[in-house]
């Protein structure tokens, strides 16, 4: 499955400044592994040492926050848009 991943400004040092990149995988976990292959180091900024999504990062598949879905096991259909967004906003 090929998906599109939106990269926040804070992580664009890993993607040569690209705001949107392609990755492969049928689940979010696989997509992050794919991202790591292309952009070494980026996965560790999104998930912690225990392998869970960091406290201050929100990840969306389409319009849905994956915390309301299956977290890293959330399926990522062909052509899906994955968005990684800093969580500390609002209020």
């Amino acid at each position: 499955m090929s998906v599109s991943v939106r990269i926040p400004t804070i992580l664009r040092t890993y993607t040569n400044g690209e705001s949107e990149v392609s990755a492969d995988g049928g689940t979010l976990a696989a997509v992050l592994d794919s991202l790591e292959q292309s952009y070494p180091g980026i996965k560790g900024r999104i998930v912690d040492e225990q392998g869970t999504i960091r406290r201050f990062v929100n990840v969306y598949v389409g319009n849905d926050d994956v915390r309301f879905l299956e977290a890293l096991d959330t399926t990522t259909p062909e052509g899906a848009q994955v968005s990684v967004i800093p969580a500390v906003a609002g209020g």
Partner: protein
Amino acid sequence: MSTSVLPSQNGPQPAPDASGDRRLRAGAFGNAVHLVCRECRATQELGPSYACSECFGPLEIGYDFPEVTRAQIEGGPKNIWRYQALLPVPTDITSSPNMEPGFTRLIKAGNLGRELGIRNLWVKDDSGNPTHSFKDRVVAVALSAAREFGSTVFACPSTGNLANAVAAAGARAGMKTVVFIPDNLERPKVITTAVYGGTLIAVKGSYDDVNRLASEIAGEEEGWAFVNVNVRPYYAEGSKTLGYEVAEQLGWRLPQQVVIPVASGSQLTKVDKGFSELVSLGLVEDTPYKIFGAQAHGCSPVSAAFKDGHDVVRPVKPDTIAKSLAIGNPADGPYVLDVTRRTGGAVEDVTDEEVRDGIQLLARTEGVFAETAGGVTVATLRKLVESGQLDPDAETVVFNTGDGLKTLDAVADRVGPAATIEPSYAAFTAAAVV
């Protein structure tokens, strides 16, 4: 403070001025010296950044305070700028057009206290701010930051009160505003934003959807200052002034208990920070205080985490009449848990019917018409004292952060004339309603 080059760690940089210069002017942020991550404590230069470049944690302002005296503060203006030395704003802050919020009344709430069995109760009534909510405080500080960064657009995602405050402050400052709101917002809050001009955009979705959109735009658009996104560290500091004022108005001492509404949780944590700063600066005695958080049951992720003993907050889909508190994924939720637990307080939640009861109770006993958020705090106060979590003998301050005129629908079907009569004395006596 020396002149420094703006960092480029997250979020777009402000537009350069006509000369192309991106440097901050000396003293642009008063006694603030850097941004510091609340999680990993990494520091970075002052700039329009909000997430730690190391761990995504929230950034807040670090200061190098000089000696600050009560006399200096008391000699300042009757608004939040009396605390200029404690905020990330320049010493000439009063010379640029702003809403001059703050120094709202602290009411001795004897009637409400008697009704609830609380001996020494006060209401901090922040509905007296220029756009009738505490948001004028935070927006005033954010506006200063936006100016200093050379931002060209003043923007926010909002549940309503912030929308009012940003639109009004932008109008007064002569700055372009863009305000994003959920499309189901209460109509009064739509009108009281749109009336100031600027661009108002209704987004099909919840506040959390709007917030996400704002975060994405903040990451792409040059020169935009989203008050509660990329200038959030500065904005949030404005809430400290609620804590400063309560202490000053009590005669330079800390209350023993405070009850504060929780949406993102920023306000509660900043009141705590304000109290701590007053102690460390020697402006008040170091006396213990407990901080309590108040949420509506239909959006109570922080209360749920508190009760479950968790230190992380699981996001929820909000469903409550208290729309100004309807943030399902509260950015500062974990810190609310830290503060309430550290101080011996609690986080509690109340139903929408209890919120309506709370609005009417405060109005009936103290003549203060609160927005739904105020209904939440008053209802939570009642629940806390009834459950024994709050000490009825300790001096207590409950916050009303907005004006009831903004959320008339909350009580519209509960109140009205006792009778409709002909204009005659006979009709009056026959009605027998007095």
